[in-house]
């Protein structure tokens, strides 16, 4: 019993110390009747299909870089894969019926972490905006608008975010920001780069979109 209590205390302490980051900008306001159109203007993006990208993951002071491809199978399905500069497949997976099936994982990381990092990061681009009327909150600090969704993101509640007219995504868990992604665009709705911070999994990543289609 003592060990059990000790273990739970350590777990709570660990979550408190290394879990989601406590940020002042996590203090979102209550659900209010803000303008939903600001989200509709920013999402979804014009994403080429297939989409070619370069993915950089910084994790535990190491960096992994992969060349990647995402290809829509149908309305709800996406194939995602990546390979090294020397041509070897690093990962390939299929998103279907709201879950990932990993077909190949040569990254050296666990399937779980592969899903929670690279695969979910790429899938962000395919997130569909919820119907109007959902809860919209304003961040008291930077004035960004947060549109709450019923979907999970980085183990928290997923949000579409618009800050200074720039789109992105966020996730809140126990009132703290777990995940933050900001989009850089060349033109409206044409992203060029997404910078991601995942506080739950303790990594940073970057997706650079390559404006080039596969060989004709």
């Amino acid at each position, binding site marked *: 019993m003592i060990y059990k209590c000790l273990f739970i205390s350590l777990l709570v302490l660990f979550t408190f110390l290394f879990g989601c980051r406590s940020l002042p900008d996590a203090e979102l306001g209550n659900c209010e009747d803000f303008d939903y159109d600001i989200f509709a203007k920013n999402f979804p993006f014009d994403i080429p299909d*297939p989409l*070619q990208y*370069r993915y*950089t993951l910084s994790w535990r*002071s*190491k*960096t*992994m*870089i992969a*060349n990647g*491809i995402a*290809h829509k*199978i149908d309305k709800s399905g996406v*194939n995602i*894969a990546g*390979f*090294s*500069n*020397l*041509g*070897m*497949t690093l990962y*390939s997976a*299929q998103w279907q019926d709201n879950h990932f099936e990993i*077909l*190949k994982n*040569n990254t*050296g990381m666990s399937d779980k972490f592969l899903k929670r990092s690279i695969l979910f990061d790429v899938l962000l681009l395919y997130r569909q905006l919820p119907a109007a009327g959902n809860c919209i909150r304003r961040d008291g600090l930077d004035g960004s608008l947060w549109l709450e969704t019923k979907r999970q993101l980085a183990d928290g509640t997923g949000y579409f975010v618009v800050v200074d007219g720039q789109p992105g995504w966020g996730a809140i868990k126990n009132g703290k920001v777990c995940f933050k992604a900001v989009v850089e665009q060349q033109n409206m709705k044409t992203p060029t780069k997404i910078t991601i911070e995942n506080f739950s999994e303790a990594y940073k990543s970057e997706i*650079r979109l*390559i*404006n*080039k289609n*596969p*060989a*004709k």
Partner: protein
Amino acid sequence: MRRSMILRWIKRSIYSAIIMTHIAFGVAAERNPVPALEDFLKHLEKRHSNMKTLAARFRQEKHFSFMDKPLVSEGYIIFESPDKIRFDITEPFQTAMLSDGKKIERYEFLDDQWRPIQSNAGKSIKLVMEQIGQWMQGKFSNQKRLFDLSISADDPNGYVVLDLEPRPKQFRQYIEKIRIHVSKPPEYHITRIDIFEPEGDRFALAFQQEILNKKLPENCFSKPHTAKQCQELFSQKKKKESSED
């Protein structure tokens, strides 16, 4: 009488069959002779033995089983005997892998500058780079420990195709077969490398322009920003060829 006719017919049939077989196989052998493996490897190694430096442009194609079309990238490889290699991708993004024979360093060109990549894949990349270096020198005899080697004349354009099938089970999880296309003698150029992975993914590295034994830019294997000078090697050759035309 009837018996002798039957015997004559059988004789004629046998002669015709022999002649036809001879013609068929003779012509085929003349078109695409398949040399003995050991002889071929010796010739290949001998042909590359005087190679001091090599620079080659390449086109990479990555085929995923779920895609109709390959993903294409371009770059160049520079090699100095015995073990210095530079492997750059120039399109659609810019990276450099430099090996001075001791250590390997990787760089990415971002926001107008070369940034080093701290990676935990350094050892495995070094092994692959060393392997490529061995192939560039035509050294395949010493590959028998890792691979089962076989040759065929499957390549419709080239002379011979050398297949390397990994022996260790762990290796076969990642690579099913490596196919090396070698041009006709006396050149014995390695024109293309295909890597077949289990479950249908494939990778091809096709060499397009080869420059042998030319003086390489200084610090080519240690400084990523010498990329421009390295690329000039190919444009110089192009210019020379067009002026000769």
